[in-house]
Every structure is written in C-alpha cells, then in structure tokens.
C-alpha cells in the first residue's frame, strides 16, 4: 500500500517578530518512524534529504535614502547586521528581498550606494548572502547597474534539500516578471519532483495585495500557476515595508519589514493616503526589523515546521543605551 504523507505541511512557516527582518528555521519533523520515512522519501525524490538550518531575511534597506520620514540613513541596516551576527543560532544564509539601495538619477551616485550596501552587508557573519533587486535598484536602467554589482536578477540555488528561487519582478518598467523569466522558471522547476521544498524570494508581492499602492505583480498569477503543482512553496518578499502573511490556498506568502521606514496598514488607511509612518524620535526603529527562519523538518506539529521570528529593533539593542541620543549623536538630523 502506498504511504500517504502530509507533504504540504512540511514547509509551513510560523512567524515571530524581530522588527528588522526575519530569521527562518527550516526544521525537519521530530524523529519518529513516520518522519524518518518521510524525510527518506523526500531525499530520494529530491536528491537531497532536508536537514535543519536557519536563515535570515532582510529587506528594503534603501541605502542612500535621506530625510523624512527616516533621518537615520543606514543605521537600522547596520544594527540589523550586528543583530544577525549576535544570534545564538547562526544562520546559514541571509537573503535580502530588494530595494537594497534607493534610486538616484546619477549613475555614479547609485553605484556608490550599491558599494555602500556591499560594504555593510559584507560585515555579516553568514556563509551565504543572496539578493534580489527592488524597483529602486533596477527600475530606472532595467537592472544594468545592479547586475554589474550583484550579478543576475533571477537565479536559483539549492541548500540542504531546499530549492531557493530568486525571481526578479522589478527590472521591467512595469510590475511584472515577464514571459522570458516565467519560461526560465518553468525550466528551472522541471527537474524537481512535486514534493521539493521551494522558497521563492522576490520583491513585490506575487498577488494583488493592494494594487492601488502598487503592491502587486501584474503576471503574479502566471508565476503562481507555474508553482501550483509543487506542494511545499513559500514566497518571501519585501516592498511593502511591513509584515504580512497570506495563504493563497496553495502557497504561503510572507512580507518582511523594511530597514528604513514603515508603511501603514492598508486595510485601515484611506486608499489615497499611502504615506510612510512618521519618524518617532523616542522609538526610531519602530516597525523596522529582521526575520529569522528555522527549518526543522522533524518538528512537531508538522504545521509549524518552518518557524519564523520577526524581530523589531529596539533602542536597548543599540549599544545598550536607552534613549534616542545614541542614535542621533552622529548628527544625522
């Protein structure tokens, strides 16, 4: 008799807030006869048996952005790097889901911003750093300068039994992935069985979250249709500068916070009032953060197998000083 496993529950994500990004834990289910059998099955099917690891998602660092609503420039980003380096659980991987830099009309200036991003992200103590562009990195020149600094805008890689896909939905002038990249995605996925755990990293949401605020990808449905046959799909994105979780009935979509400023809740904000949340001197990192993810396929219940913690930056974490003076002393205002 064919053994039936609850494969869809294998890569589900549970989130905890950190405030400067996100740490993901990829955790195989608890050791039991059934989970061992399941992991063995996945190893056989996917070519590599999933093993526990953690990774961090940062997003929307907007290096080069100055002025209101956030006068602190790269401080949240730099603090996030320090925070990741101080984690007890060392991440295998850090991903950044777009808008690494704020756009500049001046190519030299934009290049300097990209170099500054590289300098700050280079302080991360993580074996791997994987990036995907945002429209502020690649929208003005179709991604030319981004590619010169960071490489391809759409690509994939495998890590410990999980297939990661970086999907560019910003290099075209309009919010779309485009037919060529969707064809590449199909080809990329073709070698995987339907059971393969897949994590898609992209910038804009791949569903209509709030089209009036450009929180959508026009051909997002086409992308999700390509992913539809796969049973363990998680989409991690940025762009909206706030947490969001969405289950489309097949895949789960998670937005990470920004490291520059936050946008308000679109469900309670008038549709024509998309404005950043004002800077709060008392809590300069309010609503900014990172995400931590732990993958443990053995974890029980299986529905919590991919564990997410979103962590908000706080003043106390910043050189252990309380109060905004520490943050403001460098004369950034």
């Amino acid at each position, binding site marked *: 008799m064919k053994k039936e496993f609850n494969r869809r529950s294998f890569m589900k994500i549970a989130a905890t807030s950190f405030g400067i990004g996100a740490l993901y834990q990829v955790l195989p289910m608890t050791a039991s006869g059934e989970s061992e059998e399941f992991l063995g099955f996945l190893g056989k099917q996917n070519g590599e048996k999933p093993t526990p690891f953690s990774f961090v998602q940062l997003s929307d660092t907007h290096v080069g952005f100055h002025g209101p609503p956030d006068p602190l420039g790269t401080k949240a980003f730099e603090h996030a790097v320090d925070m990741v380096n101080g984690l007890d659980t060392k991440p295998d991987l850090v991903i950044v889901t777009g808008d690494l830099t*704020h*756009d500049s*009309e001046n190519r030299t200036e934009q290049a300097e911003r990209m170099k500054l991003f590289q300098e700050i992200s280079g302080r991360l103590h993580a074996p791997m750093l994987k990036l995907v562009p945002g*429209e*502020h990195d690649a*929208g*003005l020149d179709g991604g030319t300068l981004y590619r010169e600094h960071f490489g391809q805008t759409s690509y994939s890689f495998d890590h410990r039994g999980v297939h990661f896909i970086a999907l560019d939905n*910003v290099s075209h*002038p*309009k*919010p779309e992935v485009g037919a060529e990249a969707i064809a590449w995605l199909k080809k990329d996925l073709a070698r995987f069985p339907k059971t393969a755990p897949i994590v898609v990293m992209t910038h804009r949401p791949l569903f*209509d979250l709030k*089209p*009036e*605020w*450009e929180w959508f990808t*026009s051909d997002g449905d086409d992308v999700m249709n390509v992913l539809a046959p796969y049973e363990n799909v998680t989409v991690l994105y940025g762009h909206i500068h706030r947490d969001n979780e969405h289950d489309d009935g097949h895949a789960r979509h998670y937005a990470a916070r920004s490291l520059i400023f936050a946008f308000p809740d679109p469900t309670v904000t008038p*549709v*024509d009032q*998309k*404005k950043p949340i004002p800077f709060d001197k008392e809590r300069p990192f309010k609503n900014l953060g990172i995400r931590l993810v732990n993958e443990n396929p053995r974890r029980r219940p299986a529905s919590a197998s991919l564990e997410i913690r979103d962590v908000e930056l706080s003043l106390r974490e910043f050189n252990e000083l309380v109060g905004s003076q520490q943050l403001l002393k460098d004369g950034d205002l």
Partner: protein
Amino acid sequence: MKRKLWTILPILVLALLTSASFARHDDDAAPQVIELKAKRFAFTPGEITLKKGEPVILRLSSDDVTHGLYLKPLKIDADITPGKTTDVKVTPEQVGKFVAICDHFCGAGHGNMHLVVNVVE
C-alpha cells in the same frame, strides 16, 4: 405641378429634420474627453469625476518620461509615452472612489504618483 410639390415638400422637411436629429444625437453620444498630463511624480488634474455608464476618453500625455496609468477595476492599463497623446476609452461600471497609479517606474517619487477617480451615479 403645385400638387406634386406639396406632396414632396413634407417628405423633404421630414427628411431634413430626421437628419438634423440624428446629427444632434451623434454629438450627444460623443464621449467627453478628459485631458490628463503625467509628470514626475503627479497627474494633472490629480482627481477626476466620472458618471457610471457614461463613456469618456482619457487623453493622456507626458511632459517628461514614460509613465503608466493602471486601474484594474476600470480596466485601465496604458503607457504614456512622451511626445504623443494616448487615448483610453473608459465606461465606468461601478460607483466609488478609485485610485489609479503610475505603474511605469519613473523615479524616487513613483510610489505615490496617483490619480483619484470618483465614479458617481
């Protein structure tokens, strides 16, 4: 001859009146044209009001770079290229306040470039 004239004249008058009436009707049916200019990072005017069920033509032009105009509920999805006008015919089918956006990335303020479209009965 006179009798024949009196027979033809009413027909001619009726034909003329009918023709004039049709011409006037055609004028009435011509959609209103609303001119919209796109310039980083705003549309001018920034707000328009349309009537439900009444077709209008949005005549779009750009003063600087290529912009877009996107509003899914009203089926608007157009590129606005500098140096030419683009006409988009719209017949709103639902009442409400909508926000159309520039969906062609045009620079730092792009994320807030929008047009409020009110549709009334």
